[in-house]
């Protein structure tokens, strides 16, 4: 897989833009999914994931081909997501259905600073609830919990993606788990 990707990267470096399409096709779902989990919003996830690919394209000459491409790509995307979260204001409509999600309402897209009454939370479907709980985590913990438990990446890889020492990643995973447990007291 890495060999194929490096081959395509070299073609891109030679000026063949079409070769980049294959790279996007290979990683689109994983990258979009991470962005969606980070941002709790499909439109924003699409925008940020696409932006991440654009930045990867522009900076492709800085990618060290001895390293794992997905790590580099995830780094670009998580940085963009964190920037977006920090700028984000809660300005959406709670009852609006998220396009293409069959009944998934904006309740699952609420920023971490909004708490719902417990009986509202209890009415949520599992998938909605999962995203709600992830969204309540601070961005520090959210990124590690997503990479660890949704992307199922090893701690070392998360440390490479977030450019944090392994010890810091472990601490954040621990605190993230503790925060989830506290949030979900009524599970």
């Amino acid at each position, binding site marked *: 897989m890495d060999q194929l990707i490096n081959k395509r990267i070299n073609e891109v470096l*030679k*000026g*063949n*833009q079409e070769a*980049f*399409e294959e790279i*996007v*096709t290979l990683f*689109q*779902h994983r*990258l*979009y*999914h991470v962005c*969606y*989990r980070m941002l709790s919003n*499909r439109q924003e996830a*699409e925008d940020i*994931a*696409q*932006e991440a*690919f*654009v930045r990867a*394209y*522009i900076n492709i000459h800085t990618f060290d081909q001895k390293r794992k491409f997905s790590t580099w790509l995830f780094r670009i995307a998580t940085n963009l997501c964190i920037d977006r979260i920090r700028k984000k204001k809660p300005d959406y409509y709670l009852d609006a259905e998220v396009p*293409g999600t069959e009944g998934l309402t904006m309740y699952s897209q609420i920023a971490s600073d909004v708490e719902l009454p417990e009986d509202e939370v209890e009415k949520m479907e*599992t*998938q909605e*609830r*999962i*995203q709600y*709980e*992830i969204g309540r985590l601070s961005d520090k913990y959210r990124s590690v*919990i997503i990479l660890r*438990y*949704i992307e199922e990446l090893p*701690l070392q890889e998360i440390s490479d993606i977030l450019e944090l020492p392994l010890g810091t990643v*472990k601490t954040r*995973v*621990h605190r993230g*788990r*503790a925060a*989830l*447990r506290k949030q*979900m007291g009524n*599970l």
Partner: protein
Amino acid sequence: MNTCPEQIVHYMHAYLDGDISRDDERVLNEHLKQCTSCQELMDDLIGAVQFIEKAEHIQAPSGFVDGVMARLPKEKSQAGIQR
């Protein structure tokens, strides 16, 4: 739980990360056998993680790749008309 050694919570997380030593794991297990509040905490942590792991995989919308390609800066004309 306040009387429990602080180390126990660290062992729980080390266990969940799959990087606990055999000795520490033995200490943890011994403790959990006699301490219901720590056992409860352990169960809750495992439950929280398992809940998050139920997240369904969501695919990028159709047209995603085309969208990226459309957003790329125009190709530098290296191959073609350069003289």
